Structures are given as C-alpha cells and as structure tokens.
C-alpha cells in the first residue's frame, strides 16, 4: 500500500512564529502528539513533538519564569530539519523508518509543500487490515517446508472447501529456517473440514490442535 492512500490530509500545523503556549493548546484540543511547522509557502521547516513541549514547558516550581517560557517561539525549539516522506512511499518503508529513526510520525511532502501526515497509529491500522482481524473469521496456522508452491497447495485445499480467505500472512518458523508458517484468516465459523483435509494431505496444522477426547 502506498502512503498516499492511507495518509491524513487534514493536518494541524504551526508557523515558526507560533508560541509554545499556542502549540500546547493545539495539541490539547486536537489530541495529537506531533505538529509540523510550515512557513507561509507551505514548506515544512521543522516539527514539534509532545516530548519537546514537555522539555520546554515551565516547571510548576518556577512560576516566575513561566510567562517568558510560554512566549518562546516555536522556531527556537523545533527539531529541524524534519524527516519527511513522499506520497508514493510504501507503508513498509515508512514502518522501517519509524523503527530505525525512533520517530512516531512523518510529514508527507510533495512539490516542497506539506500534503499529509502519517503516524504510527495509521501504520498499525494498516497492519490490522492486513491481518483481516476486523472481519469475522477463523484462523488456521499451517507449518510448511520453505520451498516453492506450498502456499498454492494449501490455498487449493481451502478453495476446495469453498471458504473465502480474508488474509494470508507468511512467517519464517521461529525455530527452524527450513520451514515457514502460513497464517490464514478464513471466512467461516466451521474450519473443521478444511483442517481435516489439510491433515489428510499430510500438512502440519499448528492450530487448532486438540488432544483427542478419551470418549
């Protein structure tokens, strides 16, 4: 998925002349943790996070200083230059960037202007959609040898049982790199016939896996 399709377009911003007090108020009202700072042409010149604000906010132990501190210009406390992204970036790239740079948000820039914003929450939301967890379904995990054609084979068995697949994830096996774990979310309340067929074809179904009833 590309960032253009998942970014927030209605972004709350500050100007370099805004004050710390204004930044605090905007974050409070809009319940956001990051505010990009843009100049009059719409160019991103910096970014302010809630952590920056905490650092520069007046201490309750020094009330005399507070007026001066609240009037501090954003220009003097923002992080600059800000790391930015492009509308055509991929969500995977952005996720890696968040991890490597230890940041939680990315202003998206096109033709030198701010056009949107993407945050950790948006990336997480996309992940939730990828896992199919928002639609009613059952989860089946199958351990398969790490070789070509396995997904095709397993999916074929699900198809034979007329079950619609919401999502597929492929993980490397944590313990043995010769294997992979295929995770399917299938739109059915009764995955038992799929599981029986998978086992009959010699596949290792990790879950559901029950001790057999003694009766």
């Amino acid at each position, binding site marked *: 998925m590309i960032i253009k399709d998942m970014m927030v377009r209605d972004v709350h911003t500050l100007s370099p002349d805004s004050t710390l007090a204004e930044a605090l108020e905007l974050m409070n009202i809009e319940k956001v943790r990051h505010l990009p700072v843009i100049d009059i042409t719409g160019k991103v010149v910096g970014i302010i996070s809630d952590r920056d604000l905490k650092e520069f906010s007046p201490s309750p132990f020094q009330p005399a200083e507070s007026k001066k501190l609240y009037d501090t210009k954003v220009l003097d406390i923002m992080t600059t230059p800000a790391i930015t992204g492009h509308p055509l970036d991929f969500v995977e790239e952005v996720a890696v960037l968040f991890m490597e740079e230890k940041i939680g948000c990315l202003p998206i820039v096109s033709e030198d202007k701010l056009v949107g914003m993407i945050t950790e929450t948006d990336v997480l939301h996309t992940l939730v959609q990828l896992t*199919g*967890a928002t*639609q*009613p*379904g*059952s*989860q*089946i*995990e199958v351990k398969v040898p790490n070789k070509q054609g396995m997904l095709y084979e397993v999916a074929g068995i699900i198809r034979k*049982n*007329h*079950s*619609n697949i919401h999502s597929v994830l492929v993980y490397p096996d944590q313990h043995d790199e010769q294997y992979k774990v295929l995770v399917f*979310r299938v*739109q*059915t*309340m*009764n*995955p*038992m016939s799929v599981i029986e067929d998978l086992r009959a074809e010699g596949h290792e179904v990790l*879950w*559901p896996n*029950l*001790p*057999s*009833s*003694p*009766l």
Partner: protein
Amino acid sequence: MAKPSKLTTVEKDAVFIYSDELLNYRFSEDHPFNQKRLQLTLDLLTFSGAINESDIVPPRMATDDELNLIHDSAYIAAVRMAGNGELSKEKAENFGLGTEDTPIFKDMHEASARLVGGTLTAVDYVMEGKALHAVNLGGGLHHGFRGKASGFCIYNDSSVAIRYMQEKYHARVLYIDTDAHHGDGVQWSFYDDPSSCTLSIHETGRYLFPGTGAINERGHGKGYGCSFNIPLDAFTEDESFLEAYERSFREVIEFFKPDVILTQNGADAHCLDPLTHLSSTMKIYEEIPKLAHQLAHEYCGGKWIAVGGGGYDIWRVVPRAWSRIWMEMTGRFPESDELPAEWLNKWQPASPVPLIKTWHDPEGVYQAIPRKKEITEKNAQTIEKALYPLLKSKNQG
C-alpha cells in the same frame, strides 16, 4: 388507612417456547447448526417429567417492522428473495448469504423470522408479567449483523429483542452471552448505546471465529463502558470459566442495574464440542443458569429471558445442557443422575455416537493439559483487566 398494595400476580414460573416450525431453520443435512437439538431437549425434559403441555407456548413470527428494529430493509428483502430462489449468487454474497456458513435454503426468511418471533414471544410473556422467566432455545443467533448473515446466523433475535424491550417496555436490558464464540452481532448493535449493556464470555478470538471480543472493546461514544468482553484461553476448564462468569456477571449487574436479563446460552464451550477448545464439562451448564436465576431475582424481580445459541454436539451435550436452563427456571430437577431410559432408547439408534447416560459427565470426559495453572492465571488477569473500570470506580466511590 393504608391502601392495599397492588399485588402483581405472575401466572407461571416459566414458559418454554416451542413448535415444530422452529425446526425449519435448516441449512442442509450435514451442516453443524442443527435444530434437531430443540426436539432432543424437549423430549429429554418430557421423559424426565420436568415439562408438560401447558408449559409450552408456540413462537409467533416476527413482523418486518420488528426485524427492521435492527436489520436493513434491503437485507430483509434479500433474505426473502433468497428463500424463494430469486436472489443472484453475486447479490447473495454481499449479504453473506449462500456461503459455507449460511447457505441459502427454501423459505429461509420465514424460518428465521420465526426464531426471532420466538424470542419476542418469550419477551412479551416476561415483560407483561405472564411468566417470571421464559426460554426460547431456538434463538440466540448472536452473529447476525444489521445487513449481513454471518456464522450460521441470519436474523439476530437477541438484538431485535433488546431493541424491542427498549421501545415497547422502556427497559434497561443486560445481555449475558456464554457461547464459546464472541457475541459480535449483539455487541455491535448496541455499541454506542448506554441504555443496554452486553457481556460476552468466550474463547479468545486469536484463532476462533469471529476473532473479535477483546477486552478493549468497551463500547463507543455514549455507549463507552457498557460493552464487556472476557476472552478466555483455550483449555480453560470449568473452574476458571466459572470464576470468569461469576465475577463478571456480579460486577456488571451491580454496575448496570438492569430491569431484565437476557442470557444467550450457547452450549459449545463443552469439551466434546467439535468447533471450540475450552475443555469445560456439564458442570458449567448447571452453574450458568443458577446464577442468572439468582441475580434475576436479586436485581430484576425475577425477569429473565433465556435463548439458545451455539452447540454442535447435539447428541451428547446440548440436550443435557439446555434442559438445565428449564430445570433451573422451574425448580424441577432430576431425582437421579440417570437420564430417562426411554429417551436413551428412543434416540440412541439415530445417534452416530454413544449417548452419555447421566446428567453429569463421566470421569475423564476430557484430557487435561499440563498448562492449567498458567491458563488459570492468565484468565484471572483477563477478568481483572476487563472489569478494571468498574473496580476502579468502586474503589473511588
């Protein structure tokens, strides 16, 4: 001089909603959802001497207006067309019809509206004071959505019944769902509604259908804090299940103070059920209605409506489990642990598995797993987290 207090006379302790028409909700020969369960249960109660003709009330049909309380008109029209064989495959799929879970069958609208009508019949008996309790085992189809069939459910009788009680009787309804699957359809119907409250105790959705029912699903907007979920780990077993049920039921009812309780009694958490993994036994199906009964009297002047739900071992589990609801409502408990020989003799030939001959499960009905301590601990933590807002406000209050 004191005026004589207005005495309300309730005619009966309980009514049992049933007619053979409920059996028409039938997807196919080998579909796991099989309403033969109703017949087997009623028969077991009859041979046990726990029920007679006068206890039984036939279900009415729900009207389109009543279904409309929850369901979209377009969806109702689609179900009706599907039942007449007039709905194209593509259109059907948009409504969740014609899938493996909810195949199309003849007159499916009528059959489904009958199940909803059964629950409404039960509601009217209780809310008009004609009976203290009522049970419609044909209901409890908690996966039905506003505009989509899901998980063996077409219309959602419980959702319709809750809205119906709100509008007709201005009642605050507490919905308790002990089916092994999350009661998603009912939860989403009232997710932003603070005048009803849902509590679902189920096997975690990490693997099991429908996948929802996490602790943090607490409601939305004004309804935030009126939706409760206790997702239990696989292999939970009786003790931990009942701890979750008792703790959460008591805390939630004390918080919500309902006028009436609606319980969904899916019997698929049993270890013999083919679709789930909670490893419980008949013990929980004795305790579940017992507490519902007690709390209904404590908080709601006895007003308690019970519906059925899941339950896919229809021979060995469901009839015994569901009989317990009626026995609890009426106090007509079995005199011995043996099931009536007449029932066993009548149904054993039809059953593909040897029937269990006693009300309680025989020793060793399931194979315990060694992780019990860990699972119990995990569940205990889940209960605490799910009830945290209630416990917190109690401590502050």
